[in-house]
Every structure is written in structure tokens, then in C-alpha cells.
């Protein structure tokens, strides 16, 4: 007998329960059905429905969902006493339930049907029970799901799901007695509540009270990866004919475990949207004219051959496309166009992570895994709002909190997660370096550091000490606006944990001192030895679904696939041999440099794949000027975006549902993307378009791929960290790089033994505070910071292609503190002008205490509000990442 098992009997049958399992769980796992309604495997039991009662040796009735078996326990599931108790409950439930089973979306999966047939309940003799079916109007306000409370059995699963797993708490039990029902705040429609339309309650509801609006059954399902964010949830796309009609979570996915957010679950309509580009377009006399592939490729080939010299060509690859697409675009640029001018949108987000962490630790990716989060001891969340940006990752954080983890949130805004934090530090925006260095100083003063780790695995500690000497804690308090005691508390909480994990994203990197911010966090993790072990690490959460992959594939001006430097001779020789051509030893241009060069007229032709810089880059007017100044612009996309409008030639790409490939998510996990339907219209997978173009331009070898799988195989031979990322190894599971070969299982935790730096040691970086580039003044007294919200993705070309998604969220409002709004005499919802040194936009105002005084917040999704017209293009000096998170503005009443 193992200590991890408990032996007991159910109706005389010997059963082994695993440690921690309840009687009900053990029974179900062993194929014994005990009726149950309020039990859900992922929620704490409440024991409210009483249907799972069993009788123990002492003839007491106990709930099997709440009680764990003890060694030698004997329980029975039927007895006159039990039957009596349970049948009455079951009959009452059925009697009070609207029974239109045949037309109910939950038919065949309904727990009440199961219970009814288990007890053999007969409709006929129930009249005496039928009190009166309450006639609660159906709430169909939400575009994706509806609530029919006449079918609700009050199990509370939706309430617990929304509160305990999402941290949203949009609904709760309301009223009392016979009138008890699930209610939103003020009993208003769901759409007006704080519900985020994740649909998790719909999945969890045991009956048909919560159902999706569209619930046709697909005729087949395809297992693939969500295309919307760096969490990389597993989904099954449901297909009928050539249309994607549904999406559901993959319950066996290691990270998402069946959970999804509103985008992954509902925002798939863009795939079959009639506005999709279905044929190549050539601009003739200012208008787009449809063209055949042959004609379009011919045109592109002929034009591009004129820009092979010098620096006159550049490409921007896509954080949304697959690794295979990205790999081929950088190969095309390097081989066919002869330079290293290729960059991707990581430039405007995580380039500082890549640059800083590569220098200090040897790798710029998340050091640990998302699936560790739920077991964390201490989470340090800074400059990231997972609730909005990485919803399913934030569900794992909620799981961690339920398991007792401590949470420190550092954010100037009162973000949702702050409610659950043990400590919330609201520092002045842009003062992260001082704050973190202050924490490090406190840790060292109080001797909480991991000296052994510092001595054996790090270098440059003296320099760090030196830079700390001049740092005065009063100065820290003054600059950050945070009480020193609070900083001390945070430092202690972080340093005293056996393992503490840092998570951050663009609130750290999108600053003119973004690289310094990352250095600071790296220092913090290193002094406490929180690197290279489970539940710890420094984890930049990647925003877009494949921004990690786009960088891994070498869509960066200084590295080949697998972060191998173009300047290193041996590396270059390897690639020259493999690609059978001369390669440029010079670094290429970064995206902002490309734009500058285009304005000057040096850069003449560009190839932009799956990106919309006109919308997503700061100071967008400047981008338009740059692109308009080009001689030749190719844009390859699935929609005619603002950027595509400026193109001379548009190639229609295929969406993620129409091609085979791989995405690399935030924790370096390479996952399969599978073709669910054939490409819409005449569109083609991006890798295929690039291959065909290269062949048109005369490439005899190197681009004759016929399947995504062949591209992946080539990547595996050239990028050692992707050595084992071949399709036959990725069929049933995902792998985290470095994964060196077919046999290698991958690397969930980086830096375990050595750091991938030159010396094998991690490096401390001395730091000094630099204020943000554009400080508020009398004319522009407010600080504008930007970010994402849950409903849309990037410039919303995909999400807003669905009217329903727009119904949930359309224009980007300016979020403002009530006291600032009062000064300007503004009421909630009114249109205002937001003005910066670069221009002005109009947007509705949203008055909320989430924004502290003097700080306003805007998302950048809506093509109508155009937030990035006014953001600053001041850049981090090292990586040229723009300061999206800080610029001075003024808000005016209209």
C-alpha cells in the first residue's frame, strides 16, 4: 500500500483513492456514477445540491463531493434513507426546470437529464410539485452567450467560476428563498456588467441555463493553437464545409487546460469574413486592380530586382504569422535581397527584453514556464496587466492565489489583479529603475541576498554595489512617490520566499529607458538567486501569438535564426554554405531606422508581411510619410489594412486556420498550427507566397518548399535551439526551446547550470535613473500611458472584423481619475480632445479610479480613435523601442 493512496469501499467494492481525492472524485475515476450537480473538478466544493450524498458506516449521510475517504471506510450509494433524500431533491429540480430538452443546446450533455434518468423521474406525477415556473426573461444582451435562468438549478458553478477562476465576479446569488437567482450587479443585462465574455461559465454550467448563441455542431474539429496572444492556448476549431463555425478549449493543453478568453473562444469570425483579401491587387493610377498570381509575382519580381544593391530594400515580418512564414521572409531578405534589413514588431515591444536579458543572462525569453505559475510561492508582477492582455495566464495566477501564493503588483494604475495583491505599489510612471534598485539596496542592507549564488554564478557584483552606494532611500521615495516602508515590505516579501517569479511585459519595455528597466529586474532576480530554478525566474510575457517565434526565426537585423549573430564569421559561413550564397556581414536596419531612411529617400522598397505599422507604431503620421515616400511597397496581409492601402502591390495571405505551421508562445513553447480549411479565395500561406516570389526572381534552390513541414525541417538543421522542433515530434505535445534534437524533450527552465553568456556567468548591471523623455509641463500636464484591453488584438483588424466583438468594445476611451475629470468639468462618456505635441485625437472619456491622478490611459486598438497619432516616438537608445508608455498630453472639453 502506498502512502499516497487510501483504500475504502463503495457498496462493498474496493476502491483506491488518491491522496486528496474526495469520495466523489474517486468514484467517478473508477467508473462509478454518483449523481452530482454543484460539483466541478476545478472548483472548491460547496455541498449545496445534496445529490451526491452517500451513507457511511454510522448511517450518517455525507456529501461525497466534500468528504475525503478515510482508510477502511465503507460507504453506500443507495439505501432507503438516501433514496428518499435524493429523489425529492431531484424531483423538485426537474419540476422547476423548463423542459424543452430537444431544442436545448445542452441536450445530451445536461447533468439534469442525467440525474432525471438516473432516478427514473416521470413527468406525469409531478404536477403536485409544480409550483410555477418562474418566468425570468432571457438575457441575450451579450453577443456570444445567453442566460436562461428558467433552466438554472442554482448550483453556483458559474458564480464560483467567475469569481475564483477569473477574478471577475460579474455574477452572484441574488434575492432569496424561492426567488433566489443568479444576478449581475443591479440585476442588469450581462452586457452592461463587468463580465468579460470569456464563456467559461457557459462551459462549466451543468445545464442549459448558460449557452452560446451559436451552438451548431461542427462536422469535424481540428486541434490547433490560438492566434491571438503569447499565452498560446490550445483550441479545437470546428468546421462545417469550408467554414470555421466554432472554437473550444483543449482540456488537455498543458497551459490552458481547456480555458480560453473571449478572443480564443469567440473571435474566429474574421476567418470567413467577406472582407478577406482573396486575390492579389496591383495599384494602377491610384486604384487597386485585381491581378492573377502570375501577374502579381511577375510584377513584384521585376520591381524587386532593382533594389538588390546597398540598403535600398527592407522587410518587416509578422508576429502573427507562423515560424515557417517568418523564417522564409528573413531568408528571402538575406539571400535574395542581399542585406540584413529585416525586423519585426518585437521592436516596438520586447526588444529591450531581448537586448538586456541576452547581455545579463544570455537569453531574452521567459526563463520559466507558464504551467509553473499555479504552484508559485511568490509572484512579482510589474508593468503588465495579465487580466486584459494575457487572460488565461491570469487564470493561472488566480489558481496560484487559491493555492496560497503571495502576490506583489507594481503598477501605477489600479489594475484588476491589484485587488488580489498582498501588496500593490503604485509608483510614479517611468520610475521603475529607481524602485527596483531601491528594493535591491534594501535586500542587501538587510542581508537577504543569496550570496552563494552571487559568488558562484554571477559577475560584476562590485559594480552593482558601487552604483547602489549613491542611491539614497529617501531619494527613492521622492522619485517613485512610494513610501519606503512599503518598498521594504515588497523587498522582504520577494527576497524571503524560497522562490519568487518576476512577470513583466510592455509596461517595463516600452519606455525610453526600457532596457534599463529590464536590467534592473535582472539584477533583482540575480541578487536573490531567483534564476535557474523552478517557480522563479524573470519572465517577459510576450504579447502577440508568435512574436517569440518571429525573433527566434531571425527576423531581426543582427541575428540569423536561433539568435546566431550575423557579425560572427563562423555563423555566417554556416549559413552561406546552407543557403548557397554570399551573406552580408553588416547588421541591418531596425524598424524606426527603416522609417527614417525611407523618409530620407535612401530606402526605396519594402515588403511588409502581416503587420500594420501605420496603426500600431507611435507617431503614425511619420510612418505614413515614410511609406508614401517609397518607390515600391508590397504588403501581404489577410485584410486591406491601413498599411495595405498604401501599397503598390498587395498579396493575400492565408489565416492561421488555413495553413500548417508552428507558433512559439511566451514560454518558448513551439506548438503546432494546423490547417482547418483551405485558404479562402485565391489566398495562399505566406511561406508559399515568399517561396514562389523567390523562384520567380530566379532562385533555383532554397525556396522550393511544398509543405510547411519542409520549412520546419530546414529550420531545425540551422537553428540549434530548434533542433528538435520537427512536426513528427510536435504532433502530440509541445516543446520548449532550447530543444536540440528529436530525442531532446526541450527546456522548461532556462539557466539551470550555466548561463548562455560568453563567460557562462550572469552579469550585474550598474544603473542610474533617467527620467522619461517627455515630462508633463504646464501646457501638457497629464501623462498618457497606453495598453491593451481584453476584447481586441493589436490594431483589431481581426477582432473587429466581427461585429459582435465591436459590440463588446469599440472606441478606445480615455481613462481618467475622477478628480482630474472634475477639474475639467467632464462627465462620463463625453467626447474630449486629447492633444500631444504630435497631434490631437477625439475619444470618449471614462472616469475611473483605475487611473491615478494625473495619469490617463488609452488602448490602441480602434482605427477610429487612433491613439498612436499622439504617442511619442522617443526611443530607447539601445533597441529603438518607442516610449508608448509615457508621453505628455492635455485633455480638453469639446
Amino acid at each position, binding site marked *: 500500500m502506498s502512502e499516497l493512496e487510501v483504500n475504502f469501499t463503495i457498496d462493498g467494492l474496493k476502491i483506491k483513492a488518491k491522496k486528496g481525492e474526495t469520495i466523489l472524485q474517486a468514484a467517478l475515476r473508477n467508473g462509478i456514477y454518483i449523481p452530482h450537480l454543484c460539483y466541478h473538478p476545478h472548483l472548491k466544493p460547496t455541498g449545496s445540491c445534496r445529490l451526491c450524498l452517500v451513507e457511511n458506516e454510522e448511517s450518517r449521510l455525507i456529501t461525497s463531493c466534500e468528504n475525503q475517504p478515510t482508510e477502511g471506510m465503507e460507504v453506500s450509494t443507495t439505501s432507503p434513507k438516501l433514496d428518499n433524500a435524493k429523489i425529492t431533491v431531484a424531483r423538485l429540480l426537474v419540476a422547476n426546470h423548463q423542459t424543452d430538452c430537444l431544442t436545448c443546446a445542452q441536450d445530451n450533455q445536461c447533468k439534469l437529464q442525467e440525474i432525471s434518468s438516473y432516478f427514473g423521474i416521470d413527468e406525469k406525477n409531478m404536477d403536485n410539485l409544480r409550483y410555477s415556473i418562474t418566468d425570468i426573461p432571457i438575457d441575450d444582451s451579450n453577443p456570444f452567450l445567453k442566460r436562461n435562468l428558467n433552466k438554472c438549478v442554482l448550483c453556483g458553478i458559474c458564480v464560483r467560476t467567475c*469569481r475564483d477562476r477569473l477574478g471577475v*465576479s*460579474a*455574477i*452572484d*446569488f*441574488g*434575492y*432569496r428563498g424561492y426567488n433566489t437567482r443568479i*444576478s*449581475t*450587479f*443591479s*440585476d442588469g443585462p450581462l452586457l452592461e*456588467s*463587468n463580465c468579460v465574455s470569456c464563456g467559461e461559465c457557459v462551459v462549466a454550467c451543468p445545464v442549459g441555463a448558460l449557452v452560446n448563441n451559436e451552438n451548431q455542431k461542427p462536422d469535424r474539429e481540428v486541434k490547433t493553437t490560438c492566434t491571438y496572444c503569447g499565452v498560446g492556448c490550445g483550441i479545437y476549431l470546428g468546421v462545417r464545409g469550408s467554414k470555421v463555425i466554432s472554437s473550444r478549449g483543449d482540456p488537455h493543453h498543458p497551459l490552458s487546460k481547456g480555458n480560453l478568453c473571449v478572443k480564443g473562444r469567440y473571435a474566429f469570425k474574421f476567418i470567413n469574413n467577406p472582407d478577406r483579401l482573396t486575390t492579389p491587387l496591383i495599384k494602377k493610377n491610384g486604384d487597386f486592380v485585381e491581378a492573377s498570381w502570375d501577374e502579381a509575382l511577375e510584377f513584384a519580381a521585376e520591381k524587386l530586382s532593382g533594389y538588390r544593391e546597398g540598403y535600398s530594400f527592407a522587410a518587416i515580418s509578422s508576429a502573427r504569422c507562423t515560424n515557417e512564414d517568418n523564417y522564409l521572409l528573413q531568408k528571402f531578405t538575406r539571400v535574395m535581397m542581399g542585406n540584413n534589413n529585416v525586423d519585426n514588431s518585437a521592436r516596438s515591444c520586447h526588444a529591450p527584453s531581448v537586448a538586456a536579458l541576452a547581455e545579463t543572462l544570455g537569453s531574452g525569453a521567459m526563463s520559466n514556464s507558464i504551467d509553473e505559475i499555479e504552484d508559485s510561492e511568490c509572484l512579482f508582477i510589474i508593468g503588465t496587466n495579465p487580466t486584459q492582455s494575457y487572460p488565461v495566464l491570469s487564470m493561472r495566477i488566480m489558481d496560484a492565489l487559491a493555492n496560497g501564493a503571495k502576490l506583489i503588483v507594481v503598477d501605477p494604475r489600479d489594475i484588476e489583479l491589484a*485587488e488580489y495583491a498582498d501588496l500593490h505599489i503604485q509608483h510614479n510612471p517611468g520610475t521603475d529603475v529607481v524602485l527596483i534598485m531601491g528594493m535591491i539596496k534594501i535586500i542587501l542592507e538587510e542581508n537577504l541576498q543569496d550570496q552563494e549564488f552571487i559568488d558562484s554564478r554571477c559577475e560584476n557584483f562590485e559594480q552593482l554595489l558601487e552604483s547602489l552606494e549613491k542611491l539614497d532611500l529617501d531619494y527613492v521615495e521622492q522619485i517613485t512617490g512610494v513610501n519606503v516602508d512599503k518598498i521594504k515590505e515588497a523587498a522582504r516579501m520577494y527576497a524571503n520566499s524560497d522562490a519568487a517569479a518576476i512577470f513583466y511585459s510592455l509596461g517595463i519595455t516600452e519606455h525610453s529607458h526600457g532596457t534599463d528597466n529590464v536590467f534592473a529586474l535582472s539584477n533583482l532576480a540575480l541578487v536573490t538567486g531567483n534564476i535557474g530554478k523552478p517557480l522563479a525566474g524573470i519572465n517577459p510575457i510576450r504579447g502577440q501569438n508568435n512574436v517569440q517565434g518571429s525573433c527566434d526565426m531571425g527576423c531581426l537585423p543582427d541575428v540569423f535564426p536561433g539568435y546566431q549573430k550575423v557579425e560572427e564569421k563562423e555563423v555566417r559561413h554556416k549559413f552561406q554554405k546552407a543557403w548557397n550564397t554570399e551573406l552580408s556581414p553588416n547588421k541591418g536596419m531596425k524598424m524606426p531606422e527603416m522609417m527614417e531612411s525611407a523618409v530620407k529617400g535612401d530606402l526605396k522598397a519594402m515588403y511588409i508581411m502581416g503587420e500594420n505599422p501605420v496603426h500600431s507604431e507611435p507617431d503614425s503620421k511619420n510612418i505614413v510619410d515614410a511609406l508614401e515616400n517609397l518607390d515600391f511597397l508590397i504588403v501581404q496581409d489577410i485584410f486591406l489594412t491601413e498599411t495595405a492601402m498604401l501599397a503598390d502591390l498587395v498579396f493575400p495571405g492565408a489565416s492561421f486556420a488555413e495553413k500548417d505551421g508552428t507558433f512559439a508562445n511566451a514560454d518558448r513553447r513551439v506548438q503546432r498550427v494546423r490547417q482547418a480549411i483551405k485558404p479562402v479565395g485565391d489566398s495562399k500561406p505566406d511561406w508559399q507566397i515568399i517561396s514562389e516570389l523567390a523562384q520567380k526572381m530566379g532562385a533555383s534552390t532554397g525556396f522550393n518548399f511544398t509543405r510547411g513541414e519542409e520549412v520546419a525541417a530546414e529550420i531545425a538543421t540551422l537553428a540549434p535551439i530548434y533542433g528538435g522542433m520537427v512536426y513528427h515530434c510536435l504532433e502530440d505535445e509541445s516543446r520548449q526551446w532550447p530543444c536540440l534534437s528529436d530525442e531532446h524533450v526541450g527546456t522548461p527552465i532556462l539557466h539551470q547550470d550555466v548561463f548562455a553568456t560568453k563567460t557562462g556567468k550572469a552579469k550585474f548591471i550598474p544603473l542610474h535613473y533617467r527620467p522619461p523623455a517627455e515630462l508633463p509641463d504646464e501646457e501638457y500636464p497629464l501623462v498618457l500611458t497606453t495598453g491593451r484591453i481584453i476584447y481586441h488584438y493589436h490594431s483589431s483588424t481581426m477582432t473587429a472584423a466581427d461585429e459582435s466583438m465591436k459590440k463588446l468594445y469599440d472606441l478606445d476611451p480615455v481613462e481618467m481619475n*475622477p478628480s482630474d475629470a472634475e477639474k475639467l468639468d467632464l462627465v462620463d462618456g463625453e467626447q474630449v480632445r486629447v492633444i500631444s505635441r504630435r497631434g490631437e485625437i477625439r475619444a470618449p472619456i471614462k472616469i475611473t*479610479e483605475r487611473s491615478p491622478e494625473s495619469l490617463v490611459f488609452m488602448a490602441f486598438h480602434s482605427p477610429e480613435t487612433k491613439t498612436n497619432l499622439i504617442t511619442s516616438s522617443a526611443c530607447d537608445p539601445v533597441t529603438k523601442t518607442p516610449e508608448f508608455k509615457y508621453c505628455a498630453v492635455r485633455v480638453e472639453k469639446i
Partner: protein
Amino acid sequence: MHEDFEEIKSTYKGKKSDIIPLLQDIQIKYGYLPGEMMQEVSRFVGVSKSEVFGVATFYSQFRFTPKGRTHVMVCKGTACHVSGADKIIEGIERHLGVKEGDVTFDMEYSLESVGCLGCCALAPCAMVNDEIKSNISLKDVKRLFSKRKN
């Protein structure tokens, strides 16, 4: 309203057990529980607003709409029920253009139904502000609320 809440909350610590007394204070101040104030309570005690609403609806003492200058409570107790309380309510709803549990736009009349008023012999009956009206018929409705402004 924010200032009012600052004042109300000053004697509380922000614990979960403060919810009901806070709601009571708010109702004393406003005569009902404005949504904004329930949100303030939720923020103050750190409990979701849907839960605060759930707590509030559990107790029949709380109202969610303001009272009109004339507050009409129609009895729906057993005796009044059998003598046609529902018809009376419908009649009043039609006559005043207000739904049960709501208040007219001009804040003149509010209407709600209550349990036995304790004068069953006079059924159907209603309480209009502090006065009992007994043996009400549909005809009476017009007479009783003749001062209706439009």
C-alpha cells in the same frame, strides 16, 4: 455622492461584516440604495459589486429605486390577494404609468407590493404614505390618485 460615502464610511473599518450596516446607513441617507453607492461599498470592503448586490437583495428591508413623494404599498397578503390585489396593482400601474417596484419619472409616485399590512378585514388595502386605504376598488384608483401631475 462620493463625498457622502466618505462621510458614511468614516466610522467603519472596511470589513466584510460592515456591508449590511453600511447599506443601512446609505438607505437612511437616500431612502434607497443607489447603484453608485453599492459600488463604493464594494470597493471599500473589497467584495465584488455583484456580491454586495446579492447581500442587499437578500434582505427585504433594502430598496433599489428611490421612493416617490407619494409612496404606494399595495398589500399582497393572503386576504388581499384573494380579494384581487393583483388587479388593483395592475390598475395603479396603468393609471400612474409606473411598474411595480419603480418610481414615476417626475418622482411623484412610487409603487411596491408588500406582505400583510395587518388589516385583513379591510382587504384589499394599501398604504399610501402613512395612511391606510381600505376596500379599494378599481374605481377608487382614479379617485385616490387624482392629483396625478402630467
